[in-house]
C-alpha cells in the first residue's frame, strides 16, 4: 500500500474529514510511556511511521465500532513534547486526545495543565481522557484521588503498559469517543440545516394561511413565494 512506502510522505490531513477516518492524538511529558501504551495496544500489528520532519510517529489501526470499520490514525509525539508544546498541525482535525502522566513522577502530573491548556486552545471540544500510567510500579496510586481530572470533568484511567491493565479499554473507549464526537459534530451541522429548512417551511405555512383567508375554503392553491 502506498502509505507503507518509506518515501517521505506528505501529511494528508484532508482524509480526516472522511466518515470512516478518525485522528487520535497522544499528549504528555517525555518518558511517561506514550509509545509503550501504543505498542501494548497494537501488539504485533503495530507499524509506526516516523515522520521526523514533523517530529511525530503515526500508528495506523483499523477498528470496528458498531459494526462499521473505522480507520484510526494515532498520533504520537517524537521528542517534540520536551518543549511542552506541539505544532498546531498536531492538533488539526483531531477527534480525541489521550493525555498521559507517570504515577511515579509528580512533575508529569503537574504539567498536564499546560498540555490541557494547549489542547483546548486548538480543539476546544474534543473528548480527552486522562491516563495515569505505570500503576504496576506503584499500585497504591490507584487508591488516590487526582483533582485535575475531576476539575475538568475528564475521565481518568489507571493503566499499565507493562502488565496491560486497562490499555485495551483505554484505546477502545478513545476510538469510540472519537467516532461519536465526529458523528455528533456532524449532527450539529445537520441540526443547523434542519433549522434553516424549518424556518422556510414555517414561512410557507404562514403564507398559505394568509391565502386561505382570502380565498374560499376548499380550494387550495400552492403558494408561490416570490
Amino acid at each position: 500500500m502506498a502509505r507503507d512506502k518509506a518515501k517521505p510522505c506528505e501529511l494528508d490531513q484532508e482524509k480526516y474529514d472522511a466518515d470512516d477516518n478518525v485522528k487520535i492524538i497522544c499528549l504528555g511529558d517525555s518518558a511517561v510511556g506514550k509509545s509503550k501504551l501504543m505498542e501494548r495496544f497494537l501488539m504485533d500489528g503495530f507499524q509506526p511511521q516516523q515522520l521526523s520532519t514533523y517530529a511525530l510517529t503515526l500508528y495506523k489501526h483499523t477498528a470496528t465500532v458498531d459494526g462499521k470499520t473505522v480507520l484510526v490514525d494515532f498520533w504520537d509525539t517524537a521528542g517534540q513534547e520536551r518543549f511542552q508544546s506541539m505544532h498546531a498541525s498536531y492538533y488539526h482535525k483531531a477527534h480525541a486526545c489521550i493525555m498521559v502522566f507517570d504515577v511515579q513522577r509528580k512533575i508529569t502530573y503537574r504539567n498536564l495543565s499546560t498540555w490541557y491548556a494547549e489542547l483546548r486552545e486548538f480543539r476546544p471540544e474534543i473528548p480527552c481522557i486522562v491516563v495515569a500510567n505505570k500503576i504496576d510500579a506503584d499500585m497504591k496510586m490507584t487508591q488516590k484521588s487526582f483533582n485535575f481530572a475531576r476539575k475538568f470533568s475528564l475521565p481518568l484511567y489507571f493503566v499499565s503498559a507493562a502488565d496491560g491493565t486497562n490499555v485495551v479499554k483505554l484505546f477502545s473507549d478513545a476510538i469510540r469517543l472519537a467516532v461519536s464526537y465526529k458523528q455528533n459534530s456532524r449532527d450539529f451541522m445537520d441540526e443547523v440545516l434542519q433549522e434553516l429548512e424549518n424556518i422556510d417551511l414555517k414561512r410557507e405555512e404562514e403564507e398559505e394561511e394568509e391565502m386561505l383567508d382570502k380565498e374560499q375554503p376548499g380550494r387550495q392553491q400552492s403558494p408561490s413565494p416570490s
Partner: protein
Amino acid sequence: MMCTAKKCGIRFQPPAIILIYENEIKGKSRQRIMPVRNFSKYSDCSRAAEQLKNNPRHKGYLEQVSLKQLEKLFSFLRGNLWGQSLAETMEQIQRETTIDPEEDLNKLDDKELAKRKSIMDELFEKNQKKKDDPNFVYDIEVEFPQDEQLQSCGWDTESAEEF
C-alpha cells in the same frame, strides 16, 4: 561445567573479581579469583563487565552472575581509583541507576533522556507480561473507582481553585 554461584565481589588491591561458588559434584565451596587487567579510573564499567563475562576462561563460572552486578563491582573499583569513599560511590551508583522523581525529563538532551528511559525500561521489563507468557491476557480490565473518600494524591495544590 556446572557451578552454583554463591557470592561475587571485588578486591581493590591487586584488583580482581572474586567468585565464591559451589561445585555441584563435590558440594563444596570454592573461590575463583579473576584478575582485572587494564582497568583505569577512566575505563567504562559496562564494557569491562562485558569483557569479563565473555572471557573464555571465566565465562562458565560467571553464567549466573548478572552483567549488572559485575558492572556495579567495576563501579566500586573505579570509584576507589578516583579516591572516593565507598559511601560516595554507593551514592553515585544510586544516582545513575534510579530515577529522581523530581527531575524534569523534558529538560534533558537525547542522550541523557535515553539513559533515564533505559533505567525505566528495567522495571518495565520486569513487570511486563509478554504475548508468549502462558498467562497472557490481551484485554485486562480492572476498575479503580474514583470515590470522594479517596485520599488525595498530594500532588494537587492547596487551593481548591487550582488542581
